[in-house]
């Protein structure tokens, strides 16, 4: 039993929590979500660099139905997610124990959301070099070429909404694509429908995107969706100076500063 498993074993035995959301090894030893209720099952848990899936996507459904406190494995983006979800009144942090995992025997435990905020404040949201390069390359294209690039990418989209399902912040009970009066987004996966869907999705992530890549990792046809939101993170940093997560700060688009940049005004 490694430290992490031991810890989970203990909190389940002591009944401090009744459910632990973590990772276990799935097919081909790829990590997958695991829901542990029995101390004995804590051996199944793993944590390694392959554990990228953002487990906070389960917080809404699994915590509301769960009797008692829930513990969850969290990576840095997941911590941001918890702050954002709390600020959007989607989770009760009171019955949540957050296990910030660095490795299977190095982790930090939080039961106070403010402590999480303190930690997250210190960590700047950074775009990894691989994607930064991609964003650069795309930005260098002519506007028509960029449109062609995305037309091709979006043409792969089959509208399975795995991106939506995997995103912890896509929690709406009725997504805008499901409204047809008026038809905000054309639901068939034709070119227009796909453009509308992906632009809307990105806009709804403005200032909220956790930079966790859940959307892109979930996409069965490998559309680099995360580039859209990653670009926006960069753009927002440039235009509004900061990109942070907070329980009480309010959302980028639901707040304003009188002296915000307005470079686009003609």
């Amino acid at each position, binding site marked *: 039993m490694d430290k992490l498993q031991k810890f989970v074993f203990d909190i389940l035995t002591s009944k401090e929590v009744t459910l632990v959301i973590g990772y276990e090894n799935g097919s081909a030893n790829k990590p997958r979500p695991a829901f542990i209720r029995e101390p004995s099952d804590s051996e199944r848990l793993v944590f390694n660099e392959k554990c990228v899936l953002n487990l906070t996507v389960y917080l809404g459904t699994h915590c509301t139905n769960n009797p008692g406190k829930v513990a969850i494995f969290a990576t840095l983006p997941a911590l941001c997610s918890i702050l954002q979800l709390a600020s*959007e*009144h989607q989770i009760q942090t009171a019955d949540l124990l957050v296990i910030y995992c660095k490795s299977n025997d190095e982790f930090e435990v939080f039961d106070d959301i403010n402590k999480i905020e303190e930690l997250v404040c210190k960590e700047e949201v950074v775009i990894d070099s691989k994607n930064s390069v991609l964003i650069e390359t795309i930005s260098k294209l002519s506007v028509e070429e960029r449109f062609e690039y995305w037309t091709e990418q979006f043409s792969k989209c089959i509208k399975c909404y795995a991106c939506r399902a995997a995103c912890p912040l896509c*929690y*709406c*009970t*009725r997504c*805008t694509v499901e409204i047809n009066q008026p038809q905000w987004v054309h639901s068939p996966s034709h070119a227009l429908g796909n453009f509308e869907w992906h632009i809307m999705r990105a806009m709804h992530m403005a200032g909220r995107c956790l930079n966790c890549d859940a959307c892109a990792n979930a996409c069965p046809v490998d559309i680099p969706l995360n580039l859209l939101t990653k670009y926006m993170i960069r753009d927002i940093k440039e235009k509004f100076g900061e990109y942070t997560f907070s329980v009480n700060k309010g*959302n980028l*688009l*639901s707040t304003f500063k009188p002296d915000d940049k307005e470079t686009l005004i003609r």
Partner: protein
Amino acid sequence: MARIGVFICHCGENIGATVDCAKVAELSSRLEGVTYSVDYKYMCSDPGQTLIKKTIKEQNLTGVVVAACSPRMHEPTFRKACSEAGVNPYMVEMANIREHCSWVHDKGEATTQKAVDLVHMMVEKVKNNKPLQSIKVPVKKAALILGGGIAGIQTSLDIANAGHKVILVEREPSIGGHMSQLSETFPTLDCSQCILTPRMVEVAQNPNIELISYAELESLEGFIGNFKAKIRKKARSVDEKACTGCGLCTTKCPSRKIPSEFNENMGYRTAIYVPFPQAVPNKPVIDRENCTYYKIGKCKICEIVCPTKAIRFDQEDEIIEKEVGAIVLATGFNVLGTDFFPEYGYGKYKDVITGLQFERLASASGPTLGDIRRPSDGKIPEKIVFIACAGSRDPAKGIEYCSKICCMYTAKHAMLYKHKVPNGDASIFYMDIRAAGKMYEEFVRRAITEDEVHYIRGRVSRVYEKNGKLIVKGADTLLGGMPVEIEADMVVLATAGVASQGAEALAQKIHVSYDTHKFFTEAHPKLRPVETNTAGIFLAGACHAPKDIPESVSMASGAASKVIGLFSKSEMTREPLIAIVNRSAPPVYSSCAGCFLCISACPYQAIEKEELKDHRGKIMKTVAKVNPGLCQGCGTCVAFCRSNSIDIQGYSNEQVFAEIAALLNNDTV
């Protein structure tokens, strides 16, 4: 199926000369949903309106499009006309074919086509319009006035005299505010108290006014017409009903060396005290910080001497709940203390005083009974220097604005000094003289010419003490910045007017916006100067910005008339063009996901949380709810809501989609 009537107005030549109105009518008639269309010379004229009404009945129309001038001009006219003929006013739209078409384009095919397109757009919109009923909000006809200075007094009296209940809450033991501290008032030099105290008495005697002094607002909930206020009435330690205000206690109280706030700390008061002789209510308060009994547990002399046994040492703060329909903020302002100015000695020098302190010196009821005497040694100053704009208009000090009253009261002070010390010498350092106001400029001139006050245009760089004198170092910019040095006996700083302390906390408590200087912000700088952005809360006097008495009083009456207007009906009627969060049957209840970010997007605090319960009363979902009493219909929340759970009546998403589609697909017509 929609039955829409389209009415094309020639507006005489205004439209007719450029747009082929007959053709527009002809083409419009072909639009799907249009059952009748006609053009006429003047639609807004009586025959024009009659034509519309007649057609509505004959064709039993469900909607109307009037293609004429700007809706900002005649929308109300035509909506009224149609509703008289039985069509819901919100089923009526206007196509602006004058300001946006005939007046800005040349005569021709294209212009006529554009007119048709605009009609087409509105026809499609009307198809998606829904009949709306105007919103009724009950109004509790009682007003809460916060602050009993001249502004609060004026508002209270105006509202009370209009026959409505008023609750006037004052933080201090007595009403009167800063005006009660003033000696004379510019530009007439009549005694401040002589004009104020009668008003104070009126307040006390007006049966419609409930005066709650020595009290503060604890909390506020509700919205326009329906506020619930909790007021904390601080323990006076005196039973107001029993007390006759004879004042015996104050004469017998042993602790007598407490600096008097009313006299700006230049005189003394007792521990049980009435701020000033004409106080209203004229009932003493025990200052528990300084009362011997509260400090060491014995004394109680006041209790012994009190003929009516009105002293209550065990009295506690009391929370009073009031229901009111409107609130007026009249919490006034403060002035900076001399300690704010390092260059003028950090308030170390006893004889460097503020304008307000000078008022007390000059006041017959003041510590010197109206003689101008130096606080330090009580000598009558032979040379006195007034420094205007002490802090004001000084970005370096964080105060960019002009305090507005200083120019006038400084002139007044100089005059008063000269009247009391005829052979004395008064100089005023100023930046500009701002004497805009009836008889104001004349007043300043009098100071200069008749009373020989020296006006020196320039700033004072430093004031320091040198063998019993105050050396004022400055420059005269009119003499090319020539250095000026005056050996003064006394220096009066016209310190900047600033927000009254606690203003920010109050603003947050009741959700009104305030500026960087903590002054409350008006709803519109030009057109809604006495309203706040929170419906039902109004502004009067210097809590909005520094103001002189006449301005405060007129603003107070302005606020009062707004309140009286609101109280003129038992129900407030509002246009139904407001945002609505959708609701549906269980198990869905609403598509709102309850992120409540809309709350921060709303400029009017109109969005609240609502708990939706099942038939057993179990909370199923907590979702957003728009308060129809507060929503002004800007639609910011609508555009913000990610799940599109909020829509706005009259500019609904369906209507906008229809307009866009119609405007860009004009190949049908």
